[in-house]
């Protein structure tokens, strides 16, 4: 049985320095192109956001307040999962480690996920789900319009396809936000509460970091803050018609894009990844 370290244990810092000197004698491992890394990161941010939001809304399947809503929400979830396949495939390609879209979706832990926090927020009532969708759609629509002009033709192509789908998502979520905001007293109250509750999770969409700056400099993606004005305008227009008050606070929760999530993501992943984790390597 190994004994516990005692006072004669050599200085660990010296040992580490020694080890580092030996290691540096080995040939240098090629480092990934910093620009490529930011590019694959950007693609994960897109694909993870569509995946996690698609997952959340698919939880409604069979439980919506009207048959038409079951159909429409399943349709939106389907579009988002389809977009996920495209973004994550490209992320794997750009990353260059041979990981497929499924590998990325099913075999990463939460800290490697890059989705916006708003996507993992629990569904709440149907109004909450619709408000989350509206806030996201209004941003997603602007983002895809900008990405359709990306310097990378693969990104531009996916964005053009996804943009058509998301234009419809935004039309639908705006319409319902207006009708429920300006519906009964109760529907108005629920929509206002949802907006107030989600507001601090919306700002993250517009906060950039060094990686965003890198891809923006290369013309691959817009600077996140550049999407704010158009988003504000959409909100102003729709929420006014809905007779809802835009909250005043400007505080924004952030961290999702860097892999620091809320507690909810771990549960989403443990459910989503169950089969791949329980039966490693099986083909489905």
């Amino acid at each position, binding site marked *: 049985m190994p004994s516990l370290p005692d006072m004669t244990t050599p200085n660990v810092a010296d040992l580490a320095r020694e080890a580092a000197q030996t290691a540096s004698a080995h040939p240098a491992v090629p480092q990934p192109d910093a620009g490529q890394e930011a590019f694959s990161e950007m693609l994960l941010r897109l694909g993870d956001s569509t995946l996690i939001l698609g997952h959340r809304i698919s939880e409604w399947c069979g439980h919506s*307040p009207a*048959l*038409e809503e*079951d159909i429409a929400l399943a*349709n939106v979830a389907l579009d988002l999962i389809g977009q*996920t396949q495209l973004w994550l495939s490209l992320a794997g390609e750009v990353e260059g480690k041979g990981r497929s879209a499924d590998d990325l979706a099913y075999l990463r832990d939460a800290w490697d996920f890059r989705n916006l926090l708003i996507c993992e927020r629990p569904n709440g009532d149907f109004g909450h789900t619709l408000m989350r969708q509206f806030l996201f759609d209004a941003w997603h629509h602007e983002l895809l319009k900008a990405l359709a002009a990306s310097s990378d033709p693969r990104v531009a192509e996916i964005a053009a396809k996804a943009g058509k789908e998301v234009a419809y998502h935004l039309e639908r979520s705006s319409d319902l936000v207006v009708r429920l905001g300006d519906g009964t007293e109760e*529907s108005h109250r629920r929509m206002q509460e949802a907006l107030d509750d989600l507001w601090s999770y919306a700002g993250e969409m517009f906060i950039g970091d060094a990686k965003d700056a890198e891809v923006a400099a290369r013309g691959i993606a817009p600077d996140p803050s550049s999407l704010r004005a158009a988003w504000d305008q959409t909100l102003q227009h729709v929420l006014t018609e809905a007779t809802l008050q835009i909250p005043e606070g400007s505080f924004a929760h952030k961290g999702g894009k860097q892999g620091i999530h809320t507690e909810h993501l771990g549960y989403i992943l443990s459910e989503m990844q169950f089969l791949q984790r329980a*039966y490693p390597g099986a083909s*489905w």
Partner: protein
Amino acid sequence: MYAQLVKSEGMKAREEMSPEEIAFQERIDRGEKIEPKEWMPEGYRKTLIRQIGQHAHSEIVGQLPEGNWITRAPTLERKAILLAKVQDEAGHGLYLYSAAETLGVSRDELMELLHAGKMKYSSIFNYPTLTWADIGAVGWLVDGAAIMNQVPLQRTSFGPYSRAMIRICKEESFHQRQGYAIMMKMAQGTPEQKRMAQDALNRFWYPALMMFGPSDKDSVHSAQSMAWKIKINTNDELRQKFVDQTVPQAEYLGLTVPDPDLKWNEDKGGYDFSEPDWSEFFEVIAGNGPCNKDRLGARVRAWEDGAWFREGLMAHAEKQAARRAPVAAE
């Protein structure tokens, strides 16, 4: 087919029929379609409402056992396929409620009857989906059994029902192939996947046979429905056809149908097979299946929790109409 034990009025002999009823029966016998605004016997209308309503309810309750695996689907592609499938089921519900509406009953009225336990949905959806292979088995066996009944119903006498069936059948046969594709993958997969596939067949075989309803000798409502071409084949005919079609498919997968008495019968050109446990069937119909409480509970909750949503939309529509009204009056 998602209609079982649909009550029909007693069969009338020709001499008991009114002249209108005779003319009506003759139209059906000539293969003409009956359209919503045309005269029809009250019994025909009521039987159709029960049958189409039960079918519609089955489509929407049927979203639940499959929806149970959407968040756990093993790949992005499987997830997308399953989402699309469950969405199709909701769409079928919508066509069918619309077909029922042409007979003078609203979707909300039918929903309320379902929630109050006064209308049924197919017994099959009261069984749980416990593994991913169950999603394959539901597509293969449950949609397979449904198609067996719905293909002939494309020729049913009531126009809107017949047209809904034509559309639904196209989608259902696609679903069945998708289900079988899942089973193929599982049957050719790891030992655990094969075990899941066999286990799914073991659990779904008899409930799938029950979908056709009790044996003809115990099926009291068939004769009038068949005369009206609301029902085209007997329960036993369809069950036999289903078994004959499905057994070779199971063999191809390398799976064993859980019936030791299953045997090809050369004389009848079909399989001999064991009857399902009908006492289990009647228990499930009576509310004692493994998932009855969960399924109906989920639908009632969705309806009740969504009341504010539906009321909100109605209120908005009324406000809009009121805002437009003075303009229209000028």
